């Protein structure tokens, strides 16, 4: 029971560090730690498939992509843009108001039942695979098309325009 609260505390701490770190590289490293705490939460919920996918896709693929982009862009300390304090205070107030509204709406619901893992095989690859390739076969195929088009789009956007060849 207490392990959930410890991991939740770590998630919030690292999430705050992500948005407050001055150096963008530190920001990405803290984001990796935040995602790692989320992976632990998935394991605690016995969603093993999601834990592995979160680990591989988010921490393996997406964060590496972020790091490489940051290295490509090569930000300097003095080129790091900073907002004025007034805007920052207003932004924190706005986000805080959102959180207060969400929490207040939650308080109105009252106490809830504890989350129990009733079916231990719920989040395993066997069970999820059966559902994914039975009920969700069409969305699955459409998502493959989406990934293909995203890949083509990314390559198209990131390649430099070639100068037209004069004699060609």
């Amino acid at each position, binding site marked *: *029971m207490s392990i*959930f*609260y410890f991991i*939740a505390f770590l*998630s*919030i701490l690292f*999430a705050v560090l*992500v*948005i407050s770190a001055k150096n*963008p590289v530190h*920001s*990405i490293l803290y984001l990796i730690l935040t995602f790692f705490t*989320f992976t632990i939460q*998935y394991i605690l*919920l*016995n*969603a093993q*498939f*999601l834990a592995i*996918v979160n680990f591989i896709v*988010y921490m393996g*693929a*997406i964060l590496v992509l*972020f790091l490489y982009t940051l290295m*490509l*862009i090569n930000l300097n300390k003095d080129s790091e*843009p900073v907002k004025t304090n007034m*805007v*920052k205070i*207003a*932004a924190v107030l*706005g*986000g*805080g108001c*959102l959180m207060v509204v969400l929490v207040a709406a*939650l308080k109105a*619901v009252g*106490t*809830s*039942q*504890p*989350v*129990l*893992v009733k079916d*231990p095989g*719920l*989040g395993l690859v066997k069970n*999820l695979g059966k*559902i*994914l390739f039975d*009920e969700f076969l069409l969305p699955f195929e459409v*998502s493959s098309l*989406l*990934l293909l088009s*995203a890949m083509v*789009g990314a*390559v198209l*956007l*990131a390649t*430099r325009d070639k100068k037209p060849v004069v004699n060609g």
Partner: protein
Amino acid sequence: MDSFFKTVQSVPLNHYILLSAIIFSIGVIGVLIRRNAIIIFMSVELMLNAVNLLLTAFSVYRGDATGQVFVFFIMALAAAEVAVGLAIIVMIYRNTNSVDINVLNRLKW
């Protein structure tokens, strides 16, 4: 293994919602206070992950695996979004030599 999850999981559903709400709000604040486009992008990822965790918690709470399939689709979507978004950021950096979002105000007027 079975008894491990029985003893570990006695957390009320409200606390999962609370955690997700806090992480989501941190993401919103991050989008608002930073001007570096990459960090704004990372805050969006933070918000996506908060929603993912909540969907998984509800899925386990209801004993319905559909929520976890949905999270899987969100992750595929996030991967596509990051690839295109980072390509756009790289292109913007090539054209303006900066990732400051305040430079990109030509659509404003």
